[in-house]
């Protein structure tokens, strides 16, 4: 039943040679043979193995740490704690584009005065084998003073809640809070007059939603190998989405100049936003320096669950009002997002997305970033948006039903367009929301018969803003006319291929002539993390710039050869050509390359960009479910995902991205969630009890590509990878409602919750 996803252009069809084709992924041969080197695969001579001691308490003061017995164990080379960081004062540290508290950055690597979650790193050991390192951990004596933990977002906001940071006041434009608080920050968006808007409404709906903490679930755990040279130069092989971010995250705590650190990114085994932050690199670097040998630390699966960066659990209170004809008059949301131990949740981007699909005249969004005794949240594919969209798209569905309107018709009636002023105060630029909805409504799935009892169909629309930021690309022309493309962007999705395709299109060379690689921090210009669905788009812009630079330089060499001004040379389909007094001269790219560097130095094109404007994108999903009325088990029968990608560079890779995100969304909707005791112990830090979808839980997924080109990318590319994780929980919830009559407002929608909602238990 699976559809090949032939790209269907809705606007702006152009014909390209390479763009839009489906060449094999350049990294595939190494991956299917087991040759690709991931973080845990790195091996260096004399390498030691590191392990980390972690707090058994969700909240406690550290009174003392005694590492003497561990240090004395045969086979142990070094033991480190926060004391080895030697930092005592707080300041603002710079990591990438963000400012972070220096103390928080250090403390999350190795706790200094307090532990704030079960699994919080307290000490680290390097030994000759991982088993000896584990034995040594047991010999480290930590004197804890346990404190009461708080693990629920609403509990943490109460006046009498235990405080994680005694000196933290709520940051807000209204002025700081009077007393210290677990509310790290508060922001409000206000458009028009919501009270008036609700007064004008014929129908008002209001609900409270809850979502559990979920993890990105990448199969490869975090791993880093650190090795120092005698002159204090650190080389770090690490699993990361951003080598330059990883460099800064080690440089800051260690107080190292950036020129003394080289980060070599290894092949990444899944990231989804969770590998923007490094969790073992600082410990590995400290151990390697103290031990005088390379040290590799690989996290176990339990450590990944307990001590990396899952996404926020949340409570969302939502109220919408509409006229009888379906037009929304007002919308009001309160987003309470758990951020874990330190501030900085994705509540802001959740706020950007919650009402971004619709024209809403009056609106208000209150956003709360709340610390709790859980691991500090990290980014998970469209951070904050899935939670917010679960709330909005199920309430919109309920509104459609109340008004007796088709769910897509209701959305079309309110759909945002280019120029729409959003509740968050920004205006949409070019977007494809309406095109996506119309394509969805016209898809055969939307009208297909359900074919059985206990079945229902749900739809949902999702938006994600994407990202631009800094990228660096370099194209070296080899003497035989092949080229080497290097960028500073770690490849977490297949961008070595999609970037090479863009270079091939501009250079007019066959794709096989382009070697596409990722450069480390020693060889490339600053590149922001491969995140925010930015790489094919923003690094693509850098690559196109570099390719055009190559052509400009080569034209100049040809002109030199033929005794002409450079603007007389044209380049077309692999040939340089000019009208000279001796007739038409022409020369292939390869022939010119052979002579080019002798004529004026190596030909090397470069592109360094900071992309400040980029296209957000919409996706709409249709899902059919069957719910067993006795067990509450949900079978996903059929799934269709429609998405505006701007311009499809590689349709096969796009399909793969969308299918993978849908699978994650299915897990988020039905199976996944951290389960905690009141004392803050996670009960399911393993793949048996934290259930990620298997082949049996995911149907074939039909992908329909819509192209509404983004005008500020040379080929019209919009970010693809994150949008498709936004609609699934809402679409599935809406389908479950149609199948059972039960509206669920809490994720995951487990069989137990479904049966309770149906009144069966």
């Amino acid at each position, binding site marked *: 039943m699976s559809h090949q996803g032939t790209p269907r252009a809705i606007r702006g069809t152009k014909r390209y040679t390479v763009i839009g084709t489906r060449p094999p992924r350049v990294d595939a041969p190494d991956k299917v043979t087991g040759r690709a080197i991931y973080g845990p695969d790195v091996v260096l001579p004399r390498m030691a193995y590191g392990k980390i001691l972690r707090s058994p308490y969700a909240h406690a003061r550290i009174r003392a740490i005694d590492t003497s017995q561990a240090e004395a164990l045969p086979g142990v080379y070094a033991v480190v704690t926060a004391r080895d960081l030697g930092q005592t004062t707080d300041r603002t540290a710079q990591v990438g584009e963000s400012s972070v508290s220096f103390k928080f950055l250090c403390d999350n690597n190795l706790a200094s005065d307090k532990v704030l979650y079960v699994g919080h790193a307290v000490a680290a050991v390097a030994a000759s084998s991982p088993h000896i390192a584990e034995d040594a951990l047991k010999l480290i004596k930590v004197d804890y003073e346990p404190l009461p933990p708080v693990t629920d977002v609403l509990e943490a906001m109460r006046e009498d809640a235990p405080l994680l940071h005694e000196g933290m006041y709520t940051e807000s*434009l209204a002025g700081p809070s009077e007393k210290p608080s677990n509310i790290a920050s508060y922001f409000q968006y206000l458009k028009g007059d919501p009270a008036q808007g609700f007064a004008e409404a014929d129908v008002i709906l209001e609900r409270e939603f809850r979502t559990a903490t979920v993890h990105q679930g990448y199969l490869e755990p975090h791993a880093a190998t650190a090795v120092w040279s005698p002159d204090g130069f650190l080389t770090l092989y690490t699993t990361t989405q951003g080598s330059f971010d990883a460099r800064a995250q080690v440089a800051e705590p260690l107080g190292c100049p950036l020129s003394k650190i080289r980060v070599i990114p290894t092949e990444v085994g899944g990231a989804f936003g969770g590998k923007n932050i490094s969790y073992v690199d600082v410990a590995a670097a400290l151990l390697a320096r103290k031990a005088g040998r390379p040290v590799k630390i690989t996290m176990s699966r339990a450590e990944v669950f307990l001590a990396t960066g899952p996404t926020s659990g949340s409570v969302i209170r939502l109220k919408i009002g509409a006229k009888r004809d379906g037009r929304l008059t007002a919308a009001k949301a309160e987003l309470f997002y758990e951020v874990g131990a330190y501030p900085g949740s994705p509540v*802001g*981007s959740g706020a950007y997305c919650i009402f971004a699909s619709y024209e809403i005249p009056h609106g208000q969004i209150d956003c709360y970033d709340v610390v709790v005794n859980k691991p500090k949240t990290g980014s998970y594919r469209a951070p904050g948006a899935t939670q917010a969209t679960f709330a909005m798209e199920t309430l919109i569905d309920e509104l459609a039903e109340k008004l007796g309107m088709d769910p897509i018709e209701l959305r079309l009636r309110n759909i945002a367009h280019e120029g729409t002023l959003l509740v968050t105060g920004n205006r949409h630029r070019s977007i494809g929301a309406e095109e996506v909805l119309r394509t969805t409504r016209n898809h055969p799935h939307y009208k297909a018969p359900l074919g059985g009892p206990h079945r229902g169909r749900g739809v949902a629309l999702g938006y994600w803003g994407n990202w631009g930021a800094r990228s660096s690309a370099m194209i070296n022309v080899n003497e035989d006319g092949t080229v080497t493309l290097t960028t500073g962007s770690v490849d977490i999705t297949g961008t070595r291929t999609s970037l090479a395709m863009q270079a091939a299109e501009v250079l007019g060379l066959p794709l096989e002539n382009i070697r596409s690689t990722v450069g480390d921090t020693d060889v490339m210009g600053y590149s922001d993390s491969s995140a925010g669905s930015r790489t094919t788009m923003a690094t693509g812009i850098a690559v196109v710039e570099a390719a055009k630079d190559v052509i400009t330089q080569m034209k100049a060499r040809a002109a030199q050869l033929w005794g002409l001004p450079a603007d007389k040379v044209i380049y077309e389909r692999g040939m340089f050509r000019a009208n000279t007094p001796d007739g038409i001269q022409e020369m292939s790219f390869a022939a010119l390359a052979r002579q080019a560097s002798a004529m004026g130095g190596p030909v090397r094109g470069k592109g360094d960009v900071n992309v400040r404007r980029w296209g957000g994108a919409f996706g709409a999903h249709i899902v059919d479910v069957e719910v067993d009325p006795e067990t509450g088990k949900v079978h996903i029968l059929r799934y269709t995902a429609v998405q505006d990608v701007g311009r499809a560079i590689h349709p096969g890779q796009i399909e793969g991205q969308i299918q993978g995100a849908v699978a994650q969304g299915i897990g988020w909707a039905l199976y996944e969630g951290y389960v905690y005791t009141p004392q803050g112990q996670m009960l399911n830090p393993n793949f048996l009890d934290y259930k990620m979808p298997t082949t049996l839980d995911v149907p074939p997924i039909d992908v329909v590509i819509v192209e509404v080109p983004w005008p500020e990318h040379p080929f019209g590319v919009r970010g693809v990878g994150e949008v498709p994780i936004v609609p699934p929980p809402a679409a599935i919830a809406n389908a479950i409602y149609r199948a059972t009559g039960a509206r669920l407002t809490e994720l995951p929608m487990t069989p137990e919750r479904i049966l309770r909602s149906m009144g069966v238990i």
Partner: protein
Amino acid sequence: MALVWIPSLLRDLTGGKATVRVSGRTVAQVIEALEAAYPGIKARLAPEGKLAPGLAVAIDNVVAPLGLRTPVEEESEVRFLPAVGGG
């Protein structure tokens, strides 16, 4: 004159006004102009000579790279928003 969108939490200082026009060639100058018209607003937007922690500013929908030093054009729209990191 630049058009400044006043975040709702600051409208107690502007008498409820959601938008305000002021002159300024940089964000810093715009804030000074706002302070002159609505005393106390600078302490909330940019205490200690920098944008408040967690706050960013967008000029014509583009997040300003240089903070207070970012240039502002004659007809620019200036908006204050939470600093949101990439996904």
